[in-house]
């Protein structure tokens, strides 16, 4: 029986999946309760079973999923206790956009692309509230207004691709609110958004909770977000709840090893390194502009400038972070440095290469010297990619993948020598050498990324561009790869340009940070400067939007007051 205070009560939820390899337990003995107007955070890495739990509440689990018979999902509705497991047919509307409603991670993919956003909301209102079309439209526009969409009437008749990312998520929230739900399930609602928009959306959700008294089940992998919104937290790992309690308990005095690991991945602003010694640059980016041809033909041809006249010097032996929101041109710049994007103005100058007889001491290419010295460059500069799945050729063994640069450029004299070098580099990247005969499909994301790093390192480059190289990984794997990068910097004196949108990763890894926005370099400085005393308004916004735990906020405050004191004194 449901406790009178609770809106939703789950007892002993067990979900398993039937796969070709047998039954896989996705959720095990999960118990939770949500009271009205309460926000419960569900934290865990991908595959921990948090989304499956949400789908079980809506009875939308995949076809091969089996929800065990003893599982109880009870919902309080109109003074009655409803067993969600027993709902059939039209009754299911109650948990699907009725009393329970949901917002998704990727609003672009959650709206039908060929129907206007408004029509989809109207349909939703008509089904759940039985309004006429006109009434539903008026209600929908009112909702748009309420979730903070400006010009709601105009936006209402637009298609999803015409809205910006933040607008889309707001529209999604409006749609979820249209049936006046008592429980909102938010599945990673801000993960796909940039930090500044993430902050706005979180604020909106809190505001709505105040106004409507709606409860929320907030699913995310980001503890920082949880600390901002949730009242209660449950940490899930491999289908089990390993820790639960109030936000204060869990985040400030974590008991479980796993929770501690997750917390470690948050930016540690309190112990950021002081500015390292300024080193001579290894690569200079000199007035580089990158433009891509866009729509139009002939004389009307327009070009889009991804990078606008950027000059940058990358200091030797350091990890340089390149931060920016999506579309800021950071990837284009990274590729241009490696000669993989055509430069329309300016040049890249590898001026600080360590002289070795086999290596040209100075490599310059750019708008004037169009031809990229591919082979000379491949020996000194390499790339580690974002997606460990698409960057490894699925038809080659790990050994062949790692040996590719050696074989493509015929750098070794015999197969045995190649094999020996592959083994050496594999050991350095902590790849089990007995796995070298395997194909990439046999590895997890983290291991694949190690393979990708090993490939980049095999011809002993001095410079590496890592493009969002940990973005596709889980927090704990992320930490391992980051420490590998640090180790490589210390052991080999490698210079790494680390491109990321994730400020916590940058804070944990980099020595030097460059901030980009819309193709322009906004600010650069040591990691401590950028995070604690940002100068430009945009950087300040960016830093302020990072969901932080409170004690980290304190670190910022002290640092800022120190700087103020210093400037007052000086």
């Amino acid at each position: 029986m449901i406790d009178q205070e609770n809106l939703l009560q789950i007892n002993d939820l067990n979900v398993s999946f039937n796969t070709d390899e047998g039954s896989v337990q996705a959720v095990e003995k999960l118990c939770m309760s949500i009271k009205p107007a309460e926000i419960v955070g569900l934290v865990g890495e991908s595959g921990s079973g948090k989304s499956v739990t949400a789908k079980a509440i809506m009875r939308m689990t995949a076809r091969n999923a089996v929800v065990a018979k003893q599982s109880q999902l009870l919902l309080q509705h109109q003074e009655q206790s409803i067993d969600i497991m027993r709902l059939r047919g039209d009754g299911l509307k109650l948990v699907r956009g009725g009393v329970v409603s949901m917002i998704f991670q990727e609003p672009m993919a959650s709206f039908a692309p060929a129907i206007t956003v408004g029509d989809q909301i109207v349909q939703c209102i008509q089904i759940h509230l039985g309004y006429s079309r006109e009434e539903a439209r008026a209600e929908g526009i009112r909702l748009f207004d309420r979730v903070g969409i400006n010009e709601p009437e105009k936006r209402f008749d637009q298609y999803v691709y015409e809205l910006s990312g933040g607008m889309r998520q707001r529209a999604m929230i409006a749609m979820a609110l249209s049936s006046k739900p008592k429980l909102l399930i938010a599945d990673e609602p801000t993960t796909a958004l940039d930090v500044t928009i993430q902050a706005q959306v979180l604020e909106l959700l809190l505001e709505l909770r105040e106004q409507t008294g709606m409860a929320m089940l907030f699913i995310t992998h980001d503890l920082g977000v949880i600390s901002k919104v949730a009242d209660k937290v449950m940490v899930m790992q491999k289908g089990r709840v390993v820790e639960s309690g109030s936000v204060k308990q869990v985040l400030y005095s974590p008991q479980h090893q796993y929770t501690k690991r997750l917390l470690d991945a948050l930016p540690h602003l309190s112990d950021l390194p002081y500015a390292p010694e300024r080193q001579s640059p290894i690569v200079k980016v000199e007035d580089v502009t990158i433009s891509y041809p866009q729509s139009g033909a002939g004389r009307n041809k327009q070009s889009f400038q991804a990078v606008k006249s950027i000059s940058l010097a990358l200091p030797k032996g350091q990890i340089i972070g390149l931060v920016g929101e999506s579309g800021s041109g950071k990837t284009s710049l990274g590729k241009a440095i490696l000669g993989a994007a055509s430069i329309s103005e300016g040049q890249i100058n590898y001026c600080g290469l360590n002289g070795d007889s086999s290596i040209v001491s100075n490599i310059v290419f750019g708008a004037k010297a169009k031809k990229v010295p591919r082979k000379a460059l491949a020996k000194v500069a390499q790339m580690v990619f974002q997606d460990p799945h698409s960057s490894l050729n699925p038809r080659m063994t790990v050994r062949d993948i790692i040996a590719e640069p050696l074989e493509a450029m015929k750098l070794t004299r015999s197969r045995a020598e190649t094999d020996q070098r592959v083994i050496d580099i594999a050991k350095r990247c902590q790849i089990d050498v007995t796995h070298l005969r395997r194909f990439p499909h046999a590895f997890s994301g983290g291991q694949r990324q190690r393979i990708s790093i090993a490939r980049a390192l095999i011809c002993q480059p001095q410079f590496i561009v890592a493009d969002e190289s940990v973005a596709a990984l889980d927090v704990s794997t992320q930490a391992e790869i980051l420490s590998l990068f640090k180790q490589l910097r210390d052991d080999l004196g490698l210079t790494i340009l680390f491109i990321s949108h994730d400020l916590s990763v940058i804070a944990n890894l980099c020595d030097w940070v460059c901030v980009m926005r819309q193709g322009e370099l906004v600010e650069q400085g040591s990691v401590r400067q950028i995070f604690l005393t940002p100068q430009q308004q945009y950087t300040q916004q960016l830093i302020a939007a990072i969901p932080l735990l409170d004690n980290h906020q304190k670190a910022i405050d002290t640092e800022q007051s120190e700087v103020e004191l210093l400037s007052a004194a000086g």
Partner: protein
Amino acid sequence: MTTIMNLFGRAKSKNNTDESYYTAGQMALIKARFNRKLSGRIASWILITTLMLGLFASFFSPVDPTIKGADSDYRRGAPQMVYFWDENGFSLRPFTYTYTKEGAKIDLKALAGGGLAALDALTSSGALTSSNQNKYKVDQDKRRYLQFFVESWEYSFLDLTPIGIDFEWRTKLHLFGVEQGQVHLMGTDEDGKDVFSRTLHAIWITISIALVALVVKLFSSLIVGGVSGYFGGRIDAVLMAITEAVRVIPPIPVYLACAVALAQIDLTSVQRYFAIAVVIGLLDFATLGRRLRTHILTERNQDYVLAAQLSGASNWRVIWVHLIPSFTSYIIVDTLINFPYVILAETSLSFLGLGLTEPVNSLGVLLQKAQDPDIQQNMVWQFFPVVIFVVMVMAFVFVGDALRDAADPHSENK
């Protein structure tokens, strides 16, 4: 040193079964996934059986399918059943009976003397209708026992001369036959040719023509699609414009023109048809070529291609070591799925009288024959090639389908 050799499997290493999944290449994975699908497995066995029957048609045929082997005593004869027992007793060795055709009983004397009335009586008696010509007498007392591995007409079991090796194995051995006369499992046609044997021989001719058409098609599509996709830009635009232009030409008039043009050259009907198959293949590059182009266009934007370029690999190496292998499974699947369509093209050409014609044994010819109202009414057993055709096309479709699912990495999530 040996440890290094061990790691890369160049020295003989202990076989670890757990390791096999991880070290399984693309093809091994496809095979494993394919084997999980029952319909595909069954269809592939059916397909292999039919192909074997076709490839060694002479061995499996009891009767010479050409006019030389025609049974003049048993024209338009019904299928002969094979029995193990009858009223006269049980036999371990299967047998058929001796069938004798009844000659039309026309009383010539009466006809000569009877005048119009006799002629009238003859026509109304039904003795002249074709259905009456199918009558035969079964002599149950004269059993014909099936013999296995019998010697009969000579044929070449394996002939390597066409591919340049001077080797031909001629033999007279056949899987089965009867002691006296011939056995017609599926009856005979109006010339007395054995339908069963003709069908078996037709399978291989049809398949080989389809193979020629597909190989030609594959090459033309690979060239057009590959060049178009890899270089993109202006080359792509021009090639795709040509492709679209070729695509709008209706094929049948082209085939007609080819047939007429080829008629000027002195070719045997099979050679002529091979020539048409080449034309079919050449003109049919549009669909596969376009698909390949799209495939290459997306594939060349994959990170691993960029990774290879950044590793200092030349364009040539990128294409051959990285890009081409990613198409092989796709091409194999596409070819298999297209097989039935090419067979259908062959049959529809024969249907129009453009392709092969009697007396060549091809499924198209036999199918075309089956349209004859005479056959539809009086010799239904000549529909046997239709059954074989449907079975073969279905088998191809199911195998192709299962292969496509197996080759598609997303199918594992279903």
